[in-house]
Protein backbone atom coordinates (compact mmCIF):
# COMPACT_ATOMS: atom_id res chain seq x y z
CA UNK A 1 0.00 0.00 0.00
CA UNK A 2 1.51 3.35 -0.93
CA UNK A 3 2.44 5.58 1.94
CA UNK A 4 1.16 9.13 2.20
CA UNK A 5 4.70 10.32 1.58
CA UNK A 6 4.95 8.37 -1.66
CA UNK A 7 1.55 9.56 -2.81
CA UNK A 8 2.50 13.15 -2.20
CA UNK A 9 5.57 12.80 -4.39
CA UNK A 10 3.50 11.55 -7.32
CA UNK A 11 3.73 13.14 -10.74
CA UNK A 12 0.47 14.98 -10.43
CA UNK A 13 0.69 16.32 -6.87
CA UNK A 14 3.43 18.90 -6.64
CA UNK A 15 6.46 18.72 -4.43
CA UNK A 16 6.58 20.91 -1.31
CA UNK A 17 9.51 22.73 -2.88
CA UNK A 18 7.31 23.94 -5.76
CA UNK A 19 4.73 25.28 -3.27
CA UNK A 20 7.45 27.06 -1.30
CA UNK A 21 8.67 28.74 -4.50
CA UNK A 22 5.12 29.90 -5.27
CA UNK A 23 4.76 31.35 -1.78
CA UNK A 24 8.14 33.07 -1.89
CA UNK A 25 7.47 34.65 -5.29
CA UNK A 26 4.01 35.82 -4.20
CA UNK A 27 5.48 37.37 -1.05
CA UNK A 28 8.18 39.07 -3.11
CA UNK A 29 5.51 40.44 -5.45
CA UNK A 30 3.61 41.93 -2.50
CA UNK A 31 6.81 43.44 -1.08
CA UNK A 32 7.78 45.02 -4.42
CA UNK A 33 4.25 46.40 -4.76
CA UNK A 34 4.38 48.05 -1.34
CA UNK A 35 7.83 49.54 -1.99
CA UNK A 36 6.71 50.79 -5.42
CA UNK A 37 3.63 52.41 -3.92
CA UNK A 38 5.57 54.02 -1.07
CA UNK A 39 8.62 55.43 -2.84
CA UNK A 40 9.16 58.22 -5.33
CA UNK A 41 8.81 62.00 -5.16
CA UNK A 42 6.47 61.65 -2.20
CA UNK A 43 7.58 58.94 0.23
CA UNK A 44 4.97 57.01 2.19
CA UNK A 45 5.84 54.43 4.86
CA UNK A 46 4.85 50.81 4.17
CA UNK A 47 2.40 50.90 7.07
CA UNK A 48 0.73 53.99 5.60
CA UNK A 49 0.66 52.33 2.15
CA UNK A 50 -1.23 49.34 3.56
CA UNK A 51 -3.57 51.57 5.53
CA UNK A 52 -4.26 53.68 2.42
CA UNK A 53 -5.00 50.57 0.38
CA UNK A 54 -7.44 49.41 3.04
CA UNK A 55 -9.33 52.70 2.82
CA UNK A 56 -7.63 54.71 5.59
CA UNK A 57 -4.92 57.32 5.05
CA UNK A 58 -5.03 60.95 4.01
CA UNK A 59 -6.75 62.05 0.75
CA UNK A 60 -3.36 63.11 -0.63
CA UNK A 61 -1.87 59.68 0.05
CA UNK A 62 -4.95 58.02 -1.39
CA UNK A 63 -4.60 60.03 -4.60
CA UNK A 64 -0.90 59.26 -4.97
CA UNK A 65 -1.23 55.57 -4.11
CA UNK A 66 -4.49 54.66 -5.80
CA UNK A 67 -4.59 56.95 -8.81
CA UNK A 68 -0.96 57.52 -9.69
CA UNK A 69 1.05 54.54 -8.52
CA UNK A 70 -1.22 51.49 -8.11
CA UNK A 71 -2.34 51.13 -11.75
CA UNK A 72 1.26 51.24 -12.89
CA UNK A 73 2.37 48.55 -10.42
CA UNK A 74 -0.65 46.43 -11.35
CA UNK A 75 0.20 46.84 -15.03
CA UNK A 76 3.75 45.69 -14.33
CA UNK A 77 2.57 42.63 -12.40
CA UNK A 78 -0.13 41.68 -14.92
CA UNK A 79 1.99 42.29 -18.02
CA UNK A 80 4.91 40.39 -16.48
CA UNK A 81 2.65 37.51 -15.43
CA UNK A 82 1.09 37.29 -18.88
CA UNK A 83 4.53 37.27 -20.51
CA UNK A 84 5.81 34.61 -18.10
CA UNK A 85 2.84 32.31 -18.74
CA UNK A 86 2.99 32.84 -22.48
CA UNK A 87 6.71 32.09 -22.52
CA UNK A 88 6.20 28.88 -20.54
CA UNK A 89 3.58 27.66 -23.03
CA UNK A 90 5.74 28.38 -26.09
CA UNK A 91 8.89 26.92 -24.57
CA UNK A 92 7.00 23.71 -23.79
CA UNK A 93 5.33 23.51 -27.20
CA UNK A 94 8.60 24.04 -29.05
CA UNK A 95 10.64 21.84 -26.66
CA UNK A 96 13.17 24.64 -26.62
CA UNK A 97 14.16 27.22 -23.98
CA UNK A 98 14.50 29.79 -26.77
CA UNK A 99 10.95 29.23 -28.00
CA UNK A 100 9.50 32.34 -26.41
CA UNK A 101 7.16 34.81 -28.14
CA UNK A 102 9.96 37.40 -28.42
CA UNK A 103 12.03 34.92 -30.40
CA UNK A 104 9.27 33.37 -32.51
CA UNK A 105 8.27 36.74 -33.93
CA UNK A 106 4.94 37.54 -32.29
CA UNK A 107 6.47 40.52 -30.53
CA UNK A 108 7.78 41.92 -33.80
CA UNK A 109 4.37 41.35 -35.37
CA UNK A 110 2.79 43.38 -32.57
CA UNK A 111 5.50 46.03 -32.96
CA UNK A 112 4.90 46.32 -36.70
CA UNK A 113 1.16 46.71 -36.07
CA UNK A 114 1.70 49.38 -33.44
CA UNK A 115 4.29 51.36 -35.41
CA UNK A 116 2.02 51.29 -38.45
CA UNK A 117 -0.71 52.82 -36.27
CA UNK A 118 1.55 55.40 -34.58
CA UNK A 119 3.54 56.48 -37.60
CA UNK A 120 1.13 56.14 -40.50
CA UNK A 121 -2.46 56.01 -39.31
CA UNK A 122 -1.93 58.28 -36.31
CA UNK A 123 -4.40 56.65 -33.91
CA UNK A 124 -4.48 57.12 -30.13
CA UNK A 125 -3.31 54.81 -27.35
CA UNK A 126 -6.16 52.34 -27.74
CA UNK A 127 -5.82 52.19 -31.50
CA UNK A 128 -2.12 51.42 -30.96
CA UNK A 129 -2.98 48.63 -28.52
CA UNK A 130 -5.53 47.18 -30.94
CA UNK A 131 -3.10 47.30 -33.83
CA UNK A 132 -0.43 45.61 -31.71
CA UNK A 133 -2.78 42.73 -30.84
CA UNK A 134 -3.86 42.41 -34.47
CA UNK A 135 -0.25 42.44 -35.66
CA UNK A 136 0.70 39.77 -33.12
CA UNK A 137 -2.23 37.53 -34.07
CA UNK A 138 -1.62 37.80 -37.82
CA UNK A 139 2.07 37.00 -37.31
CA UNK A 140 1.23 34.07 -35.05
CA UNK A 141 -1.11 32.63 -37.67
CA UNK A 142 1.49 33.11 -40.40
CA UNK A 143 4.28 31.50 -38.37
CA UNK A 144 2.11 28.59 -37.27
CA UNK A 145 0.67 28.06 -40.75
CA UNK A 146 4.12 28.03 -42.35
CA UNK A 147 5.51 25.61 -39.77
CA UNK A 148 2.80 22.96 -40.25
CA UNK A 149 3.72 19.69 -41.90
CA UNK A 150 5.17 16.48 -40.63
CA UNK A 151 8.27 16.05 -38.55
CA UNK A 152 9.14 17.92 -35.37
CA UNK A 153 7.26 21.22 -35.25
CA UNK A 154 9.28 22.93 -32.52
CA UNK A 155 12.50 23.73 -34.35
CA UNK A 156 10.66 24.76 -37.50
CA UNK A 157 8.39 27.09 -35.54
CA UNK A 158 11.44 28.86 -34.07
CA UNK A 159 13.35 29.12 -37.35
CA UNK A 160 10.36 30.39 -39.33
CA UNK A 161 9.64 32.82 -36.50
CA UNK A 162 13.18 34.17 -36.66
CA UNK A 163 12.79 34.66 -40.42
CA UNK A 164 9.47 36.45 -40.04
CA UNK A 165 10.95 38.61 -37.25
CA UNK A 166 13.74 39.76 -39.53
CA UNK A 167 11.20 40.64 -42.19
CA UNK A 168 9.02 42.58 -39.76
CA UNK A 169 12.02 44.36 -38.26
CA UNK A 170 12.83 45.58 -41.77
CA UNK A 171 9.24 46.81 -42.16
CA UNK A 172 9.43 48.67 -38.83
CA UNK A 173 12.75 50.29 -39.76
CA UNK A 174 11.33 51.30 -43.13
CA UNK A 175 8.28 52.89 -41.52
CA UNK A 176 10.38 54.76 -38.98
CA UNK A 177 12.63 56.14 -41.72
CA UNK A 178 9.70 57.45 -43.74
CA UNK A 179 7.71 59.38 -41.13
CA UNK A 180 8.28 62.73 -39.41
CA UNK A 181 10.49 63.02 -36.37
CA UNK A 182 7.74 63.29 -33.74
CA UNK A 183 5.91 60.18 -34.84
CA UNK A 184 9.21 58.32 -35.10
CA UNK A 185 10.11 59.42 -31.57
CA UNK A 186 6.77 58.19 -30.21
CA UNK A 187 7.10 54.91 -32.07
CA UNK A 188 10.63 54.36 -30.79
CA UNK A 189 9.55 54.91 -27.21
CA UNK A 190 6.72 52.41 -27.67
CA UNK A 191 9.15 49.89 -29.21
CA UNK A 192 11.37 49.98 -26.12
CA UNK A 193 8.53 48.85 -23.91
CA UNK A 194 7.47 51.23 -21.18
CA UNK A 195 5.02 51.51 -18.32
CA UNK A 196 5.36 55.27 -17.97
CA UNK A 197 2.03 56.94 -17.27
CA UNK A 198 0.00 53.72 -17.28
CA UNK A 199 -3.26 54.42 -15.43
CA UNK A 200 -6.40 52.46 -14.70
CA UNK A 201 -7.43 52.68 -18.36
CA UNK A 202 -4.63 50.15 -19.02
CA UNK A 203 -4.83 48.14 -15.78
CA UNK A 204 -8.55 47.34 -15.98
CA UNK A 205 -8.57 45.86 -19.54
CA UNK A 206 -5.48 43.84 -18.59
CA UNK A 207 -7.27 42.45 -15.50
CA UNK A 208 -10.29 41.51 -17.60
CA UNK A 209 -8.13 39.81 -20.22
CA UNK A 210 -6.22 37.77 -17.63
CA UNK A 211 -9.46 36.83 -15.84
CA UNK A 212 -10.45 35.07 -19.07
CA UNK A 213 -7.11 33.80 -20.36
CA UNK A 214 -5.53 32.41 -17.19
CA UNK A 215 -8.46 30.07 -16.31
CA UNK A 216 -8.49 28.92 -19.96
CA UNK A 217 -4.79 28.16 -19.61
CA UNK A 218 -5.40 26.25 -16.37
CA UNK A 219 -7.81 23.96 -18.25
CA UNK A 220 -5.10 23.27 -20.83
CA UNK A 221 -2.24 22.77 -18.36
CA UNK A 222 -2.40 18.97 -18.23
CA UNK A 223 -2.58 18.40 -21.99
CA UNK A 224 0.37 20.82 -22.22
CA UNK A 225 2.33 18.69 -19.75
CA UNK A 226 1.65 15.65 -21.92
CA UNK A 227 2.68 17.47 -25.13
CA UNK A 228 6.10 17.83 -23.55
CA UNK A 229 6.61 14.11 -24.31
CA UNK A 230 6.32 14.58 -28.07
CA UNK A 231 3.29 14.35 -30.33
CA UNK A 232 3.20 10.57 -30.65
CA UNK A 233 3.47 9.85 -26.94
CA UNK A 234 0.90 12.54 -26.11
CA UNK A 235 -1.56 11.19 -28.67
CA UNK A 236 -1.01 7.63 -27.46
CA UNK A 237 -1.86 8.79 -23.94
CA UNK A 238 -5.16 10.22 -25.12
CA UNK A 239 -4.42 13.90 -25.78
CA UNK A 240 -6.18 15.36 -28.86
CA UNK A 241 -2.83 16.79 -29.94
CA UNK A 242 -3.76 19.14 -32.78
CA UNK A 243 -6.76 20.63 -31.00
CA UNK A 244 -4.87 21.06 -27.73
CA UNK A 245 -1.91 22.70 -29.44
CA UNK A 246 -4.10 25.11 -31.42
CA UNK A 247 -6.00 26.10 -28.26
CA UNK A 248 -2.76 26.60 -26.34
CA UNK A 249 -1.31 28.80 -29.09
CA UNK A 250 -4.47 30.94 -29.16
CA UNK A 251 -4.35 31.47 -25.38
CA UNK A 252 -0.61 32.12 -25.27
CA UNK A 253 -0.72 34.55 -28.20
CA UNK A 254 -3.63 36.27 -26.47
CA UNK A 255 -1.59 36.65 -23.28
CA UNK A 256 1.46 37.97 -25.07
CA UNK A 257 -0.67 40.19 -27.32
CA UNK A 258 -2.44 41.87 -24.38
CA UNK A 259 0.86 42.37 -22.59
CA UNK A 260 2.39 43.98 -25.66
CA UNK A 261 -0.67 46.15 -26.18
CA UNK A 262 -0.40 47.47 -22.62
CA UNK A 263 3.35 48.01 -22.33
CA UNK A 264 4.91 47.64 -25.75
CA UNK A 265 7.25 44.80 -26.68
CA UNK A 266 9.00 44.44 -23.29
CA UNK A 267 11.90 42.16 -24.12
CA UNK A 268 13.16 38.97 -22.44
CA UNK A 269 10.60 38.52 -19.64
CA UNK A 270 8.80 35.77 -21.58
CA UNK A 271 12.15 34.16 -22.37
CA UNK A 272 13.74 34.31 -18.94
CA UNK A 273 10.85 33.97 -16.45
CA UNK A 274 9.98 30.29 -17.16
CA UNK A 275 13.64 29.28 -17.10
CA UNK A 276 14.40 31.12 -13.84
CA UNK A 277 11.26 29.65 -12.26
CA UNK A 278 12.28 26.15 -13.30
CA UNK A 279 15.72 26.65 -11.79
CA UNK A 280 14.05 27.44 -8.46
CA UNK A 281 11.35 24.75 -8.46
CA UNK A 282 13.62 22.05 -9.95
CA UNK A 283 10.42 20.40 -11.18
CA UNK A 284 9.58 19.01 -14.61
CA UNK A 285 6.57 20.13 -16.59
CA UNK A 286 5.64 23.56 -17.97
CA UNK A 287 5.48 25.13 -14.47
CA UNK A 288 2.84 27.66 -15.50
CA UNK A 289 2.10 29.04 -12.03
CA UNK A 290 5.74 29.56 -11.11
CA UNK A 291 6.48 31.13 -14.52
CA UNK A 292 3.53 33.52 -14.18
CA UNK A 293 4.59 34.61 -10.69
CA UNK A 294 8.20 34.93 -11.77
CA UNK A 295 7.23 37.08 -14.77
CA UNK A 296 5.17 39.36 -12.54
CA UNK A 297 7.97 39.75 -9.99
CA UNK A 298 10.63 40.31 -12.67
CA UNK A 299 8.72 43.05 -14.47
CA UNK A 300 7.57 44.81 -11.29
CA UNK A 301 11.14 44.76 -9.96
CA UNK A 302 12.54 45.94 -13.30
CA UNK A 303 10.03 48.80 -13.47
CA UNK A 304 10.75 49.81 -9.89
CA UNK A 305 14.48 49.99 -10.52
CA UNK A 306 13.95 51.70 -13.89
CA UNK A 307 12.01 54.44 -12.09
CA UNK A 308 14.36 54.87 -9.15
CA UNK A 309 17.81 54.01 -10.53
CA UNK A 310 18.53 57.34 -12.22
CA UNK A 311 17.90 60.57 -10.32
CA UNK A 312 16.04 61.87 -13.38
CA UNK A 313 13.81 58.75 -13.30
CA UNK A 314 11.46 57.59 -15.99
CA UNK A 315 13.74 55.09 -17.72
CA UNK A 316 11.57 52.81 -19.92
CA UNK A 317 11.28 49.37 -18.31
CA UNK A 318 12.25 47.75 -21.62
CA UNK A 319 15.76 49.16 -21.27
CA UNK A 320 16.04 47.40 -17.90
CA UNK A 321 14.66 44.01 -18.99
CA UNK A 322 16.65 44.26 -22.22
CA UNK A 323 19.93 44.75 -20.37
CA UNK A 324 19.20 42.09 -17.73
CA UNK A 325 17.70 39.69 -20.26
CA UNK A 326 20.59 40.06 -22.68
CA UNK A 327 23.05 39.23 -19.92
CA UNK A 328 20.90 36.25 -18.91
CA UNK A 329 20.70 35.00 -22.52
CA UNK A 330 24.48 35.12 -22.92
CA UNK A 331 24.91 33.25 -19.66
CA UNK A 332 22.34 30.68 -20.73
CA UNK A 333 23.97 30.11 -24.13
CA UNK A 334 27.41 29.73 -22.56
CA UNK A 335 26.27 27.23 -19.96
CA UNK A 336 23.58 25.25 -21.66
CA UNK A 337 24.17 25.52 -25.37
CA UNK A 338 24.29 21.76 -25.76
CA UNK A 339 20.63 21.39 -24.88
CA UNK A 340 19.33 24.01 -27.30
Amino acid sequence: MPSAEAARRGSVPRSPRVRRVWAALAALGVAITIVSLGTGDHAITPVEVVRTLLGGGTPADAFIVETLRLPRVLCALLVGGALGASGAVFQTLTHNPLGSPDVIGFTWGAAAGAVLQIAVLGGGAFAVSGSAIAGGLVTAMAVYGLSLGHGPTGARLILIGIGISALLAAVVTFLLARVDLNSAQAARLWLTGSLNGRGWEFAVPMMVALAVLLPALALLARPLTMLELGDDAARALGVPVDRARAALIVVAVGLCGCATAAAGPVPFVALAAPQLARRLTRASGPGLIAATLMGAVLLAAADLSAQRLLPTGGLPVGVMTGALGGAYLIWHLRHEWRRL
Partner: protein
Amino acid sequence: MATPVITTTTIPPAERLRAEGVSLAYDDRLVSTDLTLRIPDGSFTVIVGPNACGKSTALRALARMLAPTTGSVLLDGKAISSLPAKQVARTLGLLPQSSVVPDGITVRDLVGRGRYPHQGFLRAWSAADEAAVQHALAATAVADLEHRFVDELSGGQRQRVWLAMVLAQETELLLLDEPTTFLDITHQYEVLDLCAELREHAGRTLVAVLHDLNQAARYATHLVAMKDGQIVAEGPPADVVTPELVRAVFGLEALVIPDPATGTPMVVAHGRAERSK
Protein backbone atom coordinates in the same frame (compact mmCIF):
# COMPACT_ATOMS: atom_id res chain seq x y z
CA MET B 1 -8.02 0.36 -12.48
CA ALA B 2 -11.63 0.11 -13.58
CA THR B 3 -12.48 -3.54 -14.19
CA PRO B 4 -14.47 -3.96 -17.37
CA VAL B 5 -17.84 -5.62 -16.90
CA ILE B 6 -17.69 -8.95 -18.70
CA THR B 7 -21.04 -10.39 -19.62
CA THR B 8 -20.94 -14.12 -20.16
CA THR B 9 -23.59 -14.09 -22.86
CA THR B 10 -21.51 -12.25 -25.44
CA ILE B 11 -18.66 -14.06 -27.08
CA PRO B 12 -15.63 -11.78 -27.14
CA PRO B 13 -14.33 -11.13 -30.64
CA ALA B 14 -11.21 -13.08 -31.54
CA GLU B 15 -9.53 -9.88 -32.66
CA ARG B 16 -10.16 -6.77 -30.57
CA LEU B 17 -7.84 -4.79 -32.83
CA ARG B 18 -8.06 -4.97 -36.61
CA ALA B 19 -7.26 -2.90 -39.66
CA GLU B 20 -9.83 -3.64 -42.36
CA GLY B 21 -8.97 -2.77 -45.96
CA VAL B 22 -6.96 0.32 -45.05
CA SER B 23 -4.96 2.47 -47.43
CA LEU B 24 -2.12 4.27 -45.72
CA ALA B 25 -0.27 7.28 -47.06
CA TYR B 26 1.99 10.12 -45.93
CA ASP B 27 0.89 13.20 -47.89
CA ASP B 28 0.95 11.86 -51.43
CA ARG B 29 3.27 8.90 -50.84
CA LEU B 30 1.14 5.77 -50.77
CA VAL B 31 2.51 3.08 -48.44
CA SER B 32 -0.23 0.43 -48.36
CA THR B 33 -3.45 -0.18 -50.23
CA ASP B 34 -6.30 -2.39 -49.05
CA LEU B 35 -4.31 -3.80 -46.14
CA THR B 36 -6.11 -6.05 -43.70
CA LEU B 37 -4.26 -6.84 -40.48
CA ARG B 38 -5.93 -8.62 -37.55
CA ILE B 39 -4.24 -8.97 -34.20
CA PRO B 40 -5.21 -12.24 -32.51
CA ASP B 41 -6.21 -11.68 -28.87
CA GLY B 42 -3.62 -12.81 -26.37
CA SER B 43 -0.91 -13.04 -29.02
CA PHE B 44 2.54 -11.55 -29.26
CA THR B 45 2.27 -10.44 -32.86
CA VAL B 46 5.52 -9.38 -34.51
CA ILE B 47 5.64 -7.55 -37.83
CA VAL B 48 8.82 -8.02 -39.87
CA GLY B 49 9.96 -6.95 -43.31
CA PRO B 50 12.69 -5.02 -45.09
CA ASN B 51 13.19 -1.28 -44.54
CA ALA B 52 10.39 0.89 -45.91
CA CYS B 53 8.03 -2.09 -46.30
CA GLY B 54 5.32 -0.26 -44.38
CA LYS B 55 5.55 -2.22 -41.11
CA SER B 56 5.90 0.81 -38.85
CA THR B 57 3.23 2.62 -40.87
CA ALA B 58 0.84 -0.30 -40.30
CA LEU B 59 1.58 -0.20 -36.56
CA ARG B 60 1.02 3.56 -36.48
CA ALA B 61 -2.35 3.06 -38.13
CA LEU B 62 -3.31 0.42 -35.52
CA ALA B 63 -2.28 2.89 -32.80
CA ARG B 64 -4.37 5.68 -34.44
CA MET B 65 -1.24 7.80 -35.01
CA LEU B 66 -2.05 7.78 -38.72
CA ALA B 67 -5.57 7.98 -40.13
CA PRO B 68 -6.17 5.61 -43.08
CA THR B 69 -7.31 7.26 -46.31
CA THR B 70 -9.74 4.40 -46.94
CA GLY B 71 -10.93 1.52 -44.77
CA SER B 72 -10.87 1.68 -40.99
CA VAL B 73 -9.11 0.49 -37.88
CA LEU B 74 -11.50 -1.20 -35.46
CA LEU B 75 -11.08 -1.50 -31.71
CA ASP B 76 -13.65 -3.83 -30.12
CA GLY B 77 -15.69 -3.57 -33.32
CA LYS B 78 -15.86 0.22 -33.39
CA ALA B 79 -13.94 2.61 -35.63
CA ILE B 80 -11.02 3.74 -33.49
CA SER B 81 -11.23 7.26 -34.93
CA SER B 82 -14.78 7.64 -33.59
CA LEU B 83 -13.86 6.78 -29.97
CA PRO B 84 -12.85 9.41 -27.39
CA ALA B 85 -9.05 9.73 -27.27
CA LYS B 86 -8.79 9.04 -23.54
CA GLN B 87 -11.05 5.98 -23.73
CA VAL B 88 -8.82 4.45 -26.44
CA ALA B 89 -5.77 5.27 -24.32
CA ARG B 90 -7.19 3.16 -21.47
CA THR B 91 -7.33 0.11 -23.77
CA LEU B 92 -4.47 0.60 -26.19
CA GLY B 93 -0.92 1.68 -25.32
CA LEU B 94 1.90 2.60 -27.68
CA LEU B 95 5.63 2.81 -27.24
CA PRO B 96 6.50 5.25 -30.06
CA GLN B 97 9.78 5.12 -31.93
CA SER B 98 10.79 8.55 -30.73
CA SER B 99 9.73 10.50 -27.68
CA VAL B 100 11.06 13.63 -26.04
CA VAL B 101 12.53 13.44 -22.53
CA PRO B 102 11.33 16.61 -20.76
CA ASP B 103 13.99 18.68 -19.01
CA GLY B 104 14.75 17.68 -15.46
CA ILE B 105 12.15 14.92 -15.19
CA THR B 106 12.69 12.02 -12.80
CA VAL B 107 11.99 8.40 -13.70
CA ARG B 108 9.08 8.36 -11.32
CA ASP B 109 7.47 11.51 -12.76
CA LEU B 110 7.83 10.26 -16.32
CA VAL B 111 6.28 6.88 -15.49
CA GLY B 112 3.52 8.71 -13.60
CA ARG B 113 2.52 10.52 -16.79
CA GLY B 114 1.34 7.18 -18.13
CA ARG B 115 -1.62 7.58 -15.77
CA TYR B 116 -3.01 10.55 -17.73
CA PRO B 117 -5.85 8.65 -19.47
CA HIS B 118 -7.10 7.44 -16.07
CA GLN B 119 -7.26 10.93 -14.55
CA GLY B 120 -9.83 13.68 -14.86
CA PHE B 121 -9.23 17.41 -14.71
CA LEU B 122 -9.36 17.71 -10.95
CA ARG B 123 -8.82 14.16 -9.77
CA ALA B 124 -5.86 13.93 -7.46
CA TRP B 125 -3.19 11.25 -7.54
CA SER B 126 -4.91 8.09 -6.33
CA ALA B 127 -3.84 4.86 -4.68
CA ALA B 128 -4.58 3.08 -7.99
CA ASP B 129 -2.20 5.47 -9.79
CA GLU B 130 0.48 4.82 -7.19
CA ALA B 131 0.04 1.04 -7.41
CA ALA B 132 0.19 1.08 -11.22
CA VAL B 133 3.40 3.15 -11.19
CA GLN B 134 5.07 0.93 -8.57
CA HIS B 135 4.08 -2.17 -10.52
CA ALA B 136 5.41 -0.74 -13.79
CA LEU B 137 8.70 0.31 -12.15
CA ALA B 138 9.16 -3.17 -10.71
CA ALA B 139 8.20 -5.01 -13.93
CA THR B 140 10.78 -3.11 -15.97
CA ALA B 141 13.43 -3.37 -13.21
CA VAL B 142 13.86 0.40 -12.88
CA ALA B 143 12.47 0.72 -9.36
CA ASP B 144 15.95 1.53 -7.98
CA LEU B 145 16.26 4.39 -10.50
CA GLU B 146 12.96 5.94 -9.35
CA HIS B 147 14.43 9.26 -8.21
CA ARG B 148 17.13 9.58 -10.88
CA PHE B 149 16.83 12.06 -13.76
CA VAL B 150 15.88 10.38 -17.03
CA ASP B 151 18.45 12.32 -19.07
CA GLU B 152 21.25 10.84 -16.93
CA LEU B 153 20.36 7.26 -17.80
CA SER B 154 21.87 4.96 -20.41
CA GLY B 155 19.95 4.15 -23.60
CA GLY B 156 18.90 0.74 -22.29
CA GLN B 157 17.67 2.13 -18.98
CA ARG B 158 15.82 4.92 -20.77
CA GLN B 159 14.00 2.51 -23.05
CA ARG B 160 12.91 0.50 -20.01
CA VAL B 161 11.63 3.69 -18.38
CA TRP B 162 9.57 4.53 -21.47
CA LEU B 163 8.25 0.99 -21.42
CA ALA B 164 7.37 1.45 -17.74
CA MET B 165 5.40 4.58 -18.64
CA VAL B 166 3.39 2.61 -21.19
CA LEU B 167 2.86 -0.20 -18.65
CA ALA B 168 1.59 2.29 -16.06
CA GLN B 169 -1.13 3.11 -18.59
CA GLU B 170 -2.49 -0.41 -17.79
CA THR B 171 -3.82 -1.20 -21.23
CA GLU B 172 -4.76 -4.68 -22.37
CA LEU B 173 -3.31 -4.02 -25.81
CA LEU B 174 0.29 -2.90 -26.14
CA LEU B 175 1.90 -1.69 -29.37
CA LEU B 176 5.68 -1.32 -29.62
CA ASP B 177 7.39 0.41 -32.53
CA GLU B 178 10.91 -1.06 -32.85
CA PRO B 179 11.38 -1.38 -29.07
CA THR B 180 14.86 -2.89 -29.41
CA THR B 181 16.46 -0.32 -31.73
CA PHE B 182 19.45 1.47 -30.17
CA LEU B 183 19.70 -1.15 -27.41
CA ASP B 184 22.70 -3.41 -26.94
CA ILE B 185 22.08 -7.11 -27.31
CA THR B 186 21.59 -7.83 -23.59
CA HIS B 187 18.94 -5.14 -23.27
CA GLN B 188 17.26 -6.28 -26.47
CA TYR B 189 16.64 -9.68 -24.93
CA GLU B 190 15.56 -8.12 -21.62
CA VAL B 191 12.88 -6.09 -23.39
CA LEU B 192 11.70 -9.08 -25.42
CA ASP B 193 11.60 -11.33 -22.35
CA LEU B 194 9.52 -8.71 -20.59
CA CYS B 195 7.09 -8.63 -23.53
CA ALA B 196 6.78 -12.41 -23.50
CA GLU B 197 6.14 -12.30 -19.74
CA LEU B 198 3.46 -9.65 -20.12
CA ARG B 199 1.64 -11.87 -22.57
CA GLU B 200 2.01 -15.07 -20.59
CA HIS B 201 1.39 -13.83 -17.06
CA ALA B 202 -0.56 -10.59 -17.45
CA GLY B 203 -2.70 -11.75 -20.35
CA ARG B 204 -1.87 -8.75 -22.53
CA THR B 205 -1.94 -8.68 -26.30
CA LEU B 206 1.27 -7.31 -27.78
CA VAL B 207 2.19 -6.09 -31.24
CA ALA B 208 5.77 -5.16 -32.08
CA VAL B 209 7.75 -4.15 -35.12
CA LEU B 210 11.16 -5.82 -35.00
CA HIS B 211 14.18 -5.74 -37.29
CA ASP B 212 15.83 -8.99 -36.26
CA LEU B 213 14.13 -11.91 -37.96
CA ASN B 214 15.56 -14.46 -35.53
CA GLN B 215 14.33 -12.55 -32.48
CA ALA B 216 10.95 -12.23 -34.17
CA ALA B 217 10.81 -15.97 -34.89
CA ARG B 218 11.82 -16.76 -31.30
CA TYR B 219 9.41 -14.49 -29.46
CA ALA B 220 6.38 -14.09 -31.73
CA THR B 221 3.31 -16.27 -31.34
CA HIS B 222 1.97 -14.72 -34.52
CA LEU B 223 4.36 -13.50 -37.19
CA VAL B 224 3.42 -11.09 -39.96
CA ALA B 225 5.84 -10.67 -42.88
CA MET B 226 5.35 -7.56 -44.99
CA LYS B 227 6.80 -6.35 -48.27
CA ASP B 228 5.87 -3.28 -50.34
CA GLY B 229 3.02 -2.40 -48.00
CA GLN B 230 1.33 -5.78 -48.23
CA ILE B 231 1.28 -8.87 -46.03
CA VAL B 232 3.20 -11.70 -47.68
CA ALA B 233 2.64 -14.35 -45.01
CA GLU B 234 1.30 -14.61 -41.47
CA GLY B 235 0.88 -17.30 -38.85
CA PRO B 236 2.97 -19.14 -36.26
CA PRO B 237 6.70 -18.58 -36.93
CA ALA B 238 7.27 -22.31 -37.48
CA ASP B 239 4.91 -22.18 -40.48
CA VAL B 240 5.90 -18.77 -41.80
CA VAL B 241 9.70 -18.73 -41.65
CA THR B 242 10.97 -20.76 -44.62
CA PRO B 243 13.88 -20.22 -47.04
CA GLU B 244 11.32 -19.36 -49.73
CA LEU B 245 9.72 -16.65 -47.59
CA VAL B 246 13.08 -15.15 -46.61
CA ARG B 247 13.99 -15.02 -50.30
CA ALA B 248 10.62 -13.54 -51.30
CA VAL B 249 10.49 -10.89 -48.55
CA PHE B 250 14.12 -9.95 -47.93
CA GLY B 251 15.72 -11.15 -51.19
CA LEU B 252 18.18 -13.10 -49.06
CA GLU B 253 19.46 -16.62 -49.68
CA ALA B 254 19.40 -18.39 -46.33
CA LEU B 255 19.07 -21.68 -44.49
CA VAL B 256 16.34 -22.11 -41.92
CA ILE B 257 17.38 -24.42 -39.10
CA PRO B 258 15.90 -25.05 -35.62
CA ASP B 259 17.19 -22.54 -33.06
CA PRO B 260 19.45 -24.65 -30.77
CA ALA B 261 18.16 -22.74 -27.71
CA THR B 262 14.41 -22.79 -28.33
CA GLY B 263 13.65 -24.96 -31.34
CA THR B 264 12.00 -22.03 -33.13
CA PRO B 265 13.05 -21.41 -36.75
CA MET B 266 16.40 -19.69 -37.15
CA VAL B 267 17.57 -17.97 -40.29
CA VAL B 268 21.22 -18.42 -41.27
CA ALA B 269 22.20 -16.26 -44.22
CA HIS B 270 24.47 -17.73 -46.88
CA GLY B 271 26.17 -14.37 -47.44
CA ARG B 272 29.94 -14.81 -47.63
CA ALA B 273 29.70 -18.55 -47.08
CA GLU B 274 28.11 -18.76 -50.52
CA ARG B 275 30.82 -16.60 -52.10
CA SER B 276 33.73 -18.46 -50.54
CA LYS B 277 32.59 -21.81 -51.93
